[in-house]
């Protein structure tokens, strides 16, 4: 997920999102790299890991495995501090023009016990969304973001879908979804077919550090057949491909030493789906990692994290932000006999909204070829 280093507008939103993302990241996959590298801001204090840990007080914690019940668990879990709905996918036209997309909704608790309010605007939580479109043929990346409070159904997530304003995904991953988002530069309209749900970690309790207590509840629908239309630059493109859906919620804090993370989701050509992530320490070394392989029936296997290799091979420097990201990785998973190279389809897939991070389409070359998505924060 994104790092908490906003750089564009000093806005209330930014502050919210900063705190939220920090919380999200810490809670799970990730982490607050580099702060406070930017200008000193009042929010810096709120972003301190210690403060985040304190912030989590009063919220429900993901400490024990739970029984997931659907469709209820598709809806929001208000007692937890952070939660998200995460769709990414690789699509192409009949002529082979490739696109990647990301549609993400985040929820963040602002107060563990929201006050009783007479006004319908009263709320204890906020939502924000990031959307991205990668156009491989032009090597252009487009993105947009939105914010809304958890009130009056301005944004929300229930058993029928999730939305923020008119950006909406109706349906659920196990019953099929319709996605509609329109930004200034592009719009997406997809039909996403149902797919198998997979619980991550230990029956859906996913650890985020070696220390106990840093967990999230995590399930996914890794392979969802998708077709629809992308409108871009006045043109309409009919596309087909696969999407990947992730759902997580938690309240816990990150470990102090974690400063960034790399998350990879790949649809292997052999029909299986590989997810792996690592949390990095300040010196760039791996602090914690996990990996899983699953198949279309929902069968899955956790892989031995110690046997995973993930090494940057080539770096790219963003002219816009000045930050460097690894865009080629050497990947090896001993248990699978997998060895190869993960390559960004094109370098510049950097989100430069209120939060800067890299999230884009990648190809896996080598023993187990495939296509997927890579997310890098904290660089």
């Amino acid at each position, binding site marked *: 997920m994104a790092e908490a280093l906003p750089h564009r507008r000093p806005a*209330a939103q930014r502050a919210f999102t900063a705190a939220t993302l920090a919380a999200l990241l810490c809670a799970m996959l990730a982490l607050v790299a580099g702060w406070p590298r930017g200008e000193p801001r009042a929010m810096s204090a709120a972003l301190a890991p210690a403060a985040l840990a304190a912030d989590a007080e009063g919220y429900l914690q993901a400490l024990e495995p739970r029984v997931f019940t659907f469709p209820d668990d598709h809806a929001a879990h208000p007692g937890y501090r952070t939660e998200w709905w995460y769709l990414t996918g690789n699509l192409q036209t009949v002529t082979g023009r490739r696109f990647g997309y990301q549609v993400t909704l985040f929820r963040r608790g602002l107060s563990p016990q929201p006050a009783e309010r*007479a*006004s319908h605007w009263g*709320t204890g939580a906020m939502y924000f969304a990031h959307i991205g479109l990668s156009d491989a043929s032009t090597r252009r990346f487009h993105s947009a973001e939105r914010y809304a409070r958890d009130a009056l159904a301005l944004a929300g997530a229930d058993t029928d879908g999730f939305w923020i304003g*008119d950006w909406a995904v109706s349906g659920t991953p196990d019953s099929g979804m319709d996605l509609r988002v329109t930004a200034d530069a592009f719009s997406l309209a997809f039909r996403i077919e149902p797919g198998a749900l997979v619980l991550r970690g230990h029956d859906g309790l996913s650890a985020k550090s070696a220390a106990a207590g840093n967990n999230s509840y995590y399930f996914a629908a890794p392979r969802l057949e998708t077709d629809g239309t992308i409108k871009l630059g006045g043109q309409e493109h009919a596309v087909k491909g696969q999407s990947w859906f992730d759902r997580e919620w938690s309240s816990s804090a990150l470990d102090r030493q974690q400063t960034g993370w790399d998350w990879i989701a790949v649809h292997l050509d052999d029909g299986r789906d590989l997810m792996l992530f690592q949390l990095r320490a300040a010196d760039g070394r791996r602090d914690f990692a996990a990996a899983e392989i699953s198949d279309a029936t929902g069968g899955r296997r956790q892989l031995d994290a110690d046997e995973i290799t993930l090494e940057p091979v080539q770096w790219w420097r963003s002219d816009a932000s000045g930050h460097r990201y690894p865009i080629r990785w050497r990947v090896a998973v001993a248990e699978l006999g997998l060895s190869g190279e993960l390559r960004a389809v094109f370098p510049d897939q950097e989100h430069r909204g209120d939060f800067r991070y890299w999230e884009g389409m990648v190809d896996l070359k080598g023993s187990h070829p495939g296509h997927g998505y890579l997310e890098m924060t904290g660089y």
Partner: protein
Amino acid sequence: MNLLLRALWRWHARHPVLLAVTVLGAALGAASVIAIDLANASSRRAFDHAVRGLTGQATHQIHAGTVGIDEQWYVDLQRGRGGVLAAPVVRGQLRLHDGAPLELFGIDPFAEATVRPAIDAALGSAEHLITEPGAVAAGADLVARRGWQLGDTISVRSGQDVHQLRLRAVLEPRDELTTVALRDVLICDIATAQETLGLLGRLSRIDLVMEPSARLEPPPGAVLRPASSQRAQLADMTAAFHLNLTALSLLALGVAAFLVYNALGFALLQRRGIIARLRAVGATPGQIATALLAETALLGLAASAIGIAIGWVLGGVLLEQIGTTISDLYLARDVARVELGLASVGKALATGLGVALVAGAVPIIEAWRVTPREQLQRAGPQRNWSLALFGVALVLALVAVVLLQIDERSIALAFVATGVALAAGACAVPLVLRAWCGLGAALFSRLGRPLATMIWRAPAQGLRRSGVAAAALSLAVAAALGVGIMVASFRGTLIDWLDATLGADIYASAGAGLTSEDRPLQQAFIDAVRAAPEVSAVTLRRDTTVHGREHSYRAIVVDPSRPQLPPLRAGTLETVWPRFIGDDAVVVSEQLAWRRGLGLGDTIALQTEHGWHEFSVVAITADFAGDRGLLYWHATTFARHFVLPPADGLAAELSADADVDVVCARLARHPAAEGLALRSQRALRTASLQVFDRTFLVTEALRVIAAAVAVLSVVSAIAALAVERRSALALLRARGATPGQVWALGMGECGVLGLFCGVIAVPAGLGLAALLTLVINRRSFGWTLNLDPQPGQWLPAVLTALIAALIAGLVPTWRAARATPAEAMRDG
């Protein structure tokens, strides 16, 4: 040149009082202009910034109809339509415990970044504002002025309700616009605003950032307007107000210009000898003119500097008054402080210098043209120019009349015409003075009183000088008198209107009562009033806003059970009433009728709950509750087209034998009367007149300045005359006149002149008052005032001129009477 200047200056050094009076008079004239300019500009800027700073980047605004916008409409907009950058606003007026007005501005921080980035940036993390009920943020300036601390509880009154808000953030905006905008504003989350203002489920406004080509259908009863229209409306509303103040300040400046002209002309006349000698020893006319100009410029600069100092202080005082007036009439806001920028200083210097140079130019040009031989002659050439001037006066009067006819709506032309008319009056003075003196002299000559005859003849002999002095003096007294009559006429008209309008015995409202910021009355209170045994009838008032295609209007909705309307300017109650309670009728106040050019039978298109509807104007009423103008409806008519908002005012009639004060006191003790302004008819009338008097405090201040300048110009003119007459008086002494006779002669002359000025100022003042009352007020504000000549003010005006003239003559006459003939003649 230095030498020349010093040679010329010596005369001033010998007449320090005259010099001081001249400089002070000019300074006061400049001060009045500077003060008004500063106060006008500061208040305009404060009010404009207040609107603009809270508008942010919005290109359009949806303004609510009578009961606010349904919040669900905004939600549907957000969920149903992409690409609209919209920010909801819930705002309203609060009062602090000491009665100071504050605006509560409720926003959705998540929607702010694109619409009000400056406020958004200042807010930073707004988490507490959102999650804590009653949490507010305030600008550092307001916090410092109020001595608040972060975390303090702020007790506020919203209508009848008292709320405890908590200061959770102090904002330090980075730009001046936002700083000014936040001066008297509490920012809060929209939920807190709805709860505090009692606007649950409602929005006051939606601010939008849209492409010019974008189309959006506003919700029922609301309108979509360019964001600039709100500022334009405020500027439009207050423009006439500011223009009137500016014109009055220019009047004071005009009087001051006359004073400078007179004083400099006199100083030149006095220095003909030295100028001639300087010319004789080789100074060129150009050098002399340059030296004189330099001297005038110095004088102007000195006057400007003093004027700036006085004007700055005065401006601060006036600003408070102007700000209060705008708060009373247009937009409730505390006032900003006056800021003396470089531009203001420059403007002030230019004003003082310009007036001095223009006023001084005439005598200087004269001095330039005259040959040394002519200069050395004792008296200037006596030409019969008073008749020619009178001709000019007639032409000017004609011009003024024509100017008034050109465009019946132009305020600027009315002011120009007034200026021209005043100039005409000034030009007519010398001839009238000659006639006045001739008549007096003839009368006393026939009566066989040689001394009196001499006294009366004197001013006509030195007409070149006395004519100008008299013009300056009469103009100043007339200005003060004219403005005084105008204000008194206005007040009289207002009293008549209040007496005609305030037909009930007890009035209740939940707000300040005189602006449209009122909050609903509690139903329990209305019921209590209805249930009171002494109450025979209750009328409810609703003060709200409706929207036309271009403009928004204040609407007063009343529900009298029997025919009852404010005094009508067009239409009669009998014919209007049946239509007033009919389907499509609206009654328009005369200000609005004037402003929008509406007449009987015209229609106004308004956005109703059921779309656009045309209402026909069935009557035009007199109205003095603010100058924006109003639409009047009967509640039954209004309810057919709009959502009827809750009542915010109540008028109760009591049975004939009831004691108003007793009933009023009893109702005030009712629990539901908490926070209400509950007043008897008499008390409301008094309160209304207080607002009026407050409104005209600035006018009064300007009148006092004009009067002060007038007195100074009398002193200056008479003193100059007296100095000039000294040699003549000395000659009399040489011929055997006793000091007593000289004394009588000198004071007599001053008296004749002062009396003349006072007397002639009366008709001139009346003329000015007529222009101000009947033309300028009508054109500026649209209301019809009754001109009341105020004979009571005449005698004081005459006496002012007379006494000032006598005081001014005291010292020079005393010196002339005391001097030995030889001394006196040498001095001359």
